[in-house]
């Protein structure tokens, strides 16, 4: 098992605090004043160079938000958030806007190097054509750089920051923005609609198979800032796109807020594969600090035989509140959700999915693996529903939880609602700890307890890891081992 060996070595090389992305990049930033009011919304809108309709859209959302209350139904506990004590806009200070990578602040580039993002894409220079990934990097509130734009353009794929899309492709944005996650969807989505600062926009034209993996790295750097990014991906008829998302944040004692909205739209016969490796700072071993991750992710299979697949590896964040969902509207459409949620220390995870079967012969599959260790609480919360007209709907759900240590909790809260006689739903869930027999077997063959645990955990999550693109699968495997470091014995 070379991968496992690598994992173990990786774990050894990690310092006590375990989180390797905890550094702070010292750069000049341009910030909006603290707090939130209509002026701040206008300020953000002006900074982003929004057209008039966008400003109005934001203000409308903000006014709605003022009337809404924070949801409390999730199994997470945290002190009340003072929304007036946050910075809603922070951008690396720049002169005229980088035209090329050379003009980007070297400190930021250094950051990305530390994060292991191949931002400079040396493959182009070397002429290597394999495993190319186009990257859009979002630093605090703004998109810093998007690579491979030209090559994508040749294929007809639009991949840019959302603020650029609002300016350059207003028709597409207006048509689809907020059509999957309405402005008033929930407290955090509405907040995001008012103050979102950046994010990625992808449009794949009909019949195009996106020539490379698209990827976004999100980074919260500034103190006391909230990050509110918005991603909109549209796969037109018969197209295919695979999108990766990675997140990190520095180690700070204060909690940081991250409230993103991701909207996916798949038209007839289109397929979107969305993978996330979420590694926000989870707080220290005492539960101090960490990112509050309140994310609304939803995909809409609007056309016939469309397919949306979510794959997520959740290892970071002090609190995760996230339910990537699929609305299976088109006949024959398919939704998939593969998830690994690892929690350690005092992390709290409340995550799952919704599969809403509206069209005929729609199918969905949910594989969720929760691993809790330390003092963490890990909840799977999911909904599978078939509406009256969803004849022939089919769902299979499997959610397994693994407990490491006796101070943590693992919970499963599935909702299964069928209103159609021909819908077939199957759900199974198990909770257990790592079997002593398996551990003994591995240890007897010379593995240490930690190595044995890593091996068994990797086996436990194998089904989901297989769904990740290659580049991420290796990273994810390492991450899981690191997250669980110190939980054994």
């Amino acid at each position, binding site marked *: 098992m070379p991968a496992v060996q690598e994992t173990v070595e990786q774990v050894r090389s990690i310092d006590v605090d375990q989180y390797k992305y905890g550094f702070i990049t010292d750069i000049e930033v341009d910030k909006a004043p603290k707090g939130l009011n209509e002026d701040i919304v206008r300020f953000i809108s002006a900074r982003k160079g929004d057209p008039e309709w966008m400003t109005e859209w934001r203000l409308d959302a903000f006014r709605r938000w003022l009337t809404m209350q924070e949801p409390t139904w999730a199994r997470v506990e945290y002190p009340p958030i003072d929304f007036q004590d946050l910075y809603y806009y922070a951008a690396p200070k720049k002169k005229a806007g980088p035209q090329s990578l050379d003009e980007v602040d070297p400190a930021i580039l250094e950051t990305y190097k530390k994060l292991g993002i191949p931002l400079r894409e040396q493959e182009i220079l070397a002429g290597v054509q394999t495993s190319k990934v186009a990257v859009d990097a979002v630093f605090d509130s703004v998109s810093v750089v998007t690579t491979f734009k030209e090559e994508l353009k040749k294929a007809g794929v639009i991949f840019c920051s959302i603020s650029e899309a609002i300016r350059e492709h207003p028709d597409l944005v207006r048509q689809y923005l907020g059509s999957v996650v309405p402005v008033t969807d929930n407290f955090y989505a509405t907040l995001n609609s008012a103050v979102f600062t950046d994010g990625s926009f992808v449009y794949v034209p009909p019949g195009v198979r996106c020539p490379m993996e698209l990827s976004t790295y999100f980074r919260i750097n500034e103190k006391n800032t909230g990050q509110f990014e918005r991603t909109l991906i549209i796969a037109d008829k018969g197209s295919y796109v695979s999108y990766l998302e990675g997140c990190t944040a520095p180690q700070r004692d204060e909690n940081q807020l991250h409230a993103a909205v991701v909207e996916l739209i798949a038209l007839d016969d289109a397929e979107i594969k969305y993978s996330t490796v979420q590694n926000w700072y989870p707080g220290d071993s005492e539960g101090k600090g960490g990112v509050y991750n309140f994310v609304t992710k939803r995909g809409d299979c609007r056309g016939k035989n469309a397919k949306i697949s979510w794959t997520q590896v959740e290892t970071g964040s002090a609190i995760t509140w996230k339910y990537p969902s699929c609305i299976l509207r088109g006949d024959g459409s398919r939704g998939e959700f593969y998830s690994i949620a690892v929690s350690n220390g005092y992390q709290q995870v409340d995550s799952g999915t919704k599969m809403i079967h509206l069209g005929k012969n729609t199918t969905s599959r949910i594989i969720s693996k929760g691993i809790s260790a330390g003092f963490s609480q890990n909840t799977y919360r999911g909904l599978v529903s078939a509406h009256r007209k969803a004849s022939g709907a089919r769902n299979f759900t499997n959610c397994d939880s693994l407990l490491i240590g*006796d*101070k*943590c909790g693992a919970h499963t809260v599935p909702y299964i609602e069928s209103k159609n006689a*021909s819908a077939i739903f*199957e*759900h*199974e*869930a*198990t909770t257990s700890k790592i079997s002593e027999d398996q551990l003994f077997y591995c240890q007897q063959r010379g593995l240490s307890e930690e190595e044995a645990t890593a091996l068994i955990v990797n086996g436990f999550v194998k089904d989901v890891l297989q769904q990740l693109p290659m580049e991420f699968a290796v990273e994810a495997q390492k991450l899981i081992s690191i997250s669980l470091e110190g939980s054994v014995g």
Partner: protein
Amino acid sequence: MAQVTPMRTAAETQLLDLFPAVKARLPGAAEPRQQAYDAFAKAGLPHRRVEAWKYTDLRASLREAAPLADAPSAAVLGEVRTKAAPFAGLGPALAIVDGMFEPSLSDLHGMPAGVQAVGLAGALGTGHALAAQVGQAAQADDAVLALNAALMTDGVILRVAAGTQLERPLVVRFVRTGSQARAAFTRVLLVVEEGASLTLAETHEGPAGVGHQDNTVVEVITGDKATVQHVRLNADGGGAVDLSTLGVKLGADCAFTSFALVTAPALTRHQIFVTFAGENSRVSLNGGALLKGRQHADTTLVVNHAVPHCESRELYKHVLDGEATGVFQGKIIVEPHAQKTDGQMMSQAVLLGDNATMNNKPELEIFADDVVCAHGATCGQLDDDLLFYLRARGLPKPDAEALMLQAFVGEALEKVEDESIRDVLEGVVEAWLRARL
């Protein structure tokens, strides 16, 4: 989420007015009653925003709260006497008619040795020693349970002495009469002492098509090493609203089995709260619901593993025809330190009608690591291949369906160990299936 305090519905107002009006007549327990009433006044009728009642919106479906049933007249009692009870002759029976315990219809003198039976109203009124245990096993923050605690008029307290082994089941009949919709709030407390073993069978009987409203609580408190089988048969004539709570508190080394069959009422909500107070106990909760038309049946259970080394099993089967709605909500809680817990829960549903609905919510809430817990939930149609197999062997389609459904429900029915009772239940299932042909 904003705590919305909605306008009071007609039914809520009627229920709130009912308590002050009848308070003086209700036997004993004045203070707990007032507390329960206050709790209900605060919560109101449960609605879909109350998580435990998500799929049964009582606030919307209970338009009117029926007035309290009058004590049955001699003529009514005479009529009840002539009717055949489902479990007649299987064991000594006690009858609660229209909310009142009826000694004249009960085999009080035929009670086996070691069994003590007293009326609940009398016991509460006189401060009987056993009355102190009322409310011990059914404890939950629930508006329907609170209503019962506030308004219970009568019922039975049964005590089975240590070491008593009952061969024949004890039967408790809940009978409703009259053609006007009336409400009854009744309660049964079963105290099983150490090492005792018995079967308790309850039946709910009533006239056809009358919208009676029943709120029943059955509490079971056991000492160590007790074995209790519980069976609940809902065989009223249809049309009733039947809200029931089963509260169970088990000592160490106990075995508790329950089976509930629902075919008749318009709306049922059967909630079960089980608490393990001693180690090495086993619980098996089972049920079947056969529904058609616009019937609605909700089974909600909470099994709380508060101590280590206990085992729980749940198996529920729903057959839904027409526009019927089935609800299953099961929650297994494993508290910290409740190591070596073994919990398995299964809910299966067959949807026969195109407009039938099944809502499943099997939950696990686990705070200990050395446990084995699992749940499964399925819903779908009858397997076409199996149907074809049977039809190819000459069975007409309806018969083939009936055979498959019988087997489907039968899996849960098998958990009833008392043969005489199981035969009766099988008869009820067969009758329902025959009526479909």
